[in-house]
């Protein structure tokens, strides 16, 4: 800059700033504003229409004494743990296997990724049929001769959430595999060569060299999986509608049902605020570690 006077900071990159105004407004009004509005109204007794009639923590008190909400939370934890662990492990294993310079890699990749092209609704319907004891897997095995074979997770309250997790894994693992594969391909060939020269076995190379190097990919993957877990709704609706009884209910479904079917906005808002809170509890320490640490390093 030849001019000795310092230009006004506000007018630097003016075009870019003007261009981003709509997005800033959207973020502020829609996301932040909508969130604040929801939290505010969760302290009211709004029914069908939002009304500012404050009742303190009554909605939260009722929420945490409702057995359906407690079941939903428990299901979300089980579902979350399963999809997190298994989609990462299976996704990485598949990617590592595909990375062995095998033949027909493209074909396999396409096959594994295909389920991801289906929506959760379709996935849910497909697996509802597959797991139906009268038409699906159980029937096929019984017809083959094992007449006492029993496999009907969707009709057994104690294991129904695992039946839903199977469908979710089938649908989502392909994408995780692709992300992992991209990460593996991003690792320099020389690293492998160096490891081989040093005589390090392949599994050790993966575990102690490659995976730590793939940290950014893992973080992206983690965020994608976690977002999918918290918002799970359509899969449950398509597979079981929350049944048998309330055994496969999830928080997002509670929010929707109470806001629209039960015409009780206050209760729905309280539940969605709790969902937000749980996300915040997970995100904030992570963001602090991730971004707070960089300043010093």
């Amino acid at each position, binding site marked *: 800059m030849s001019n000795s006077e310092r230009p006004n900071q506000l007018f630097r990159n003016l075009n870019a700033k003007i261009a981003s105004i709509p997005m800033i407004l959207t973020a502020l009004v829609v996301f932040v504003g909508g969130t604040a509005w929801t939290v505010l109204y969760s302290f009211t007794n709004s*029914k*069908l*229409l939002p009304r500012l009639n404050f009742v303190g923590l009554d909605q939260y008190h*009722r929420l945490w004494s*409702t*057995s*359906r909400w407690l079941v939903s939370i428990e299901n979300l934890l089980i579902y979350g743990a399963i999809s997190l662990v298994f989609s990462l492990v299976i996704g990485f294993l598949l990617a590592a296997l595909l990375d062995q310079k095998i033949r027909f890699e493209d074909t396999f990749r396409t096959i594994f990724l295909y389920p991801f092209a289906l929506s959760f609704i379709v996935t849910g319907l497909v697996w509802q049929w597959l797991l*139906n*004891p*009268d038409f699906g897997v159980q029937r096929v095995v019984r017809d083959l001769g094992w007449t006492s074979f029993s496999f009907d997770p969707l*009709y057994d*309250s104690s294991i129904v959430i695992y039946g839903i997790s199977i469908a979710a894994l089938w649908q989502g693992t392909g994408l995780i595999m692709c992300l992992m594969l991209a990460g593996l391909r991003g690792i320099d060939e020389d690293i492998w060569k160096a490891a081989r020269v040093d005589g390090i076995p392949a599994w050790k190379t993966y575990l102690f060299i490659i995976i730590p190097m793939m940290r950014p990919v893992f973080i992206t993957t983690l965020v994608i999986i976690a977002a999918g877990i918290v918002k799970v709704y359509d899969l449950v609706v398509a597979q079981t*509608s*929350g*049944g*048998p*009884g*309330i*055994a496969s209910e999830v928080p997002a479904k509670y929010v929707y*049902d*109470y806001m*629209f*079917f*039960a*015409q*009780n906005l206050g*209760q729905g808002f309280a539940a969605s605020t709790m969902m937000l809170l749980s996300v915040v509890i997970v995100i904030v320490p992570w963001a602090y570690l991730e971004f707070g640490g960089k300043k010093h390093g």
Partner: protein
Amino acid sequence: MRYKFLTATFAATVAALNFAGPAAATDLEVTHWWTSGGEAAAVAELAKAFDATGNHWVDGAIAGSGGTARPIMISRITGGDPMGATQFNHGRQAEELVQAGLMRDLTDIATKGKWTEVVRPKSLLDSCTIDGKIYCVPVNIHSWQWLWLSSEAFQKAGVPMPKDWNEFVAAAPALEKAGIIPLAVGGQPWQASGAFDVLLAAVGGTDAFLNVYKDKDAKFAAGPEIAKVFKAADDARKMAKNTNVQDWNQATNLVITGKAGGQIMGDWAQGEFQVAGKTAGKDYNCLPGLGLNEVIATGGDAFYFPLLKDADKSKAQEVLAETLLDPKTQVAFNLKKGSLPVRGDVDLNTANDCMKKGLAILAKGAVIPWTDQLLSQDSQKQKEDLFSEFFAKPDMTLEDAQKRFADIIASAD
């Protein structure tokens, strides 16, 4: 050539616009959730009657059940895009829309048409009335209190057709032995909840029903009389444990095909028997009030009219309101729908045995209000959650269930 084609298209468009314009009658969009075979046929009767008045019925059917359709309807009304008229179950579903001033006051039309005299039973119009003003037109009476029994299933099991709930429970082991599910209860939450309400009115009696749902007496709901009802619900739960279907009509189909002994379901189930070509009294039997307490609840459907700015459409709303209560429309509609008419002065000779039983009970005046009229949607939903859990979880104790039921009643509004 292309120029010519464009001109022709343009001319055709103009012609079409003119045709649909001022010369035609007023279009009125009517939303409802009547989409199954019998229901669609019944709606067609309403549309025919309305079109005959020189207006035009624009059908806005929303597939799914009321649970799916109502949020859509409500968000259209609150979002400023109201339809001409819409179905709700009369009762408290549209209460807040009325209180917010979004619905049209029909009192003038009602006075002109002397609705207070023709509509029977009177409680129907009461549930359309808020602060002394009438906001909806009831079109039919649907009652939940029916036990549908399959003749084939009982023949196969070698036991006589039961005459009431107690005999039915006693016959359950024989049915099970023959490989028949004694009682079909689908997985949808409202089915379990409705079945319990029916048991409450039948086993507990009318007074117990009103004590709990009308007076919301939580102490009574926790007491010994309701414990008896829970005992009956426990029987029902055991009898229904092998039903692996979701939708109510799939459950009805189990009864039609003799795979299940019976089903507690509203009179809309009758449409399914009719479509399957079954005869009342021969292929299937019906026990109103489960044979214990012959009452009929006056739930049902009604039309509400959102407040519109357009004068022509408002005029058409008035015409539609009158048409819906017209004796001829009432007969044509209700025969197709399998429900009972809201007027006492119409002739229903062609009704079948089960409908006639219902009409006789109605004539005796043995009616009770239904939970749609007594409880808010919020309390209804909590009840659904409780009973769908109760029916699906055999290890849930009766005491626990009853305690939670009493809690819901205590906080009900």
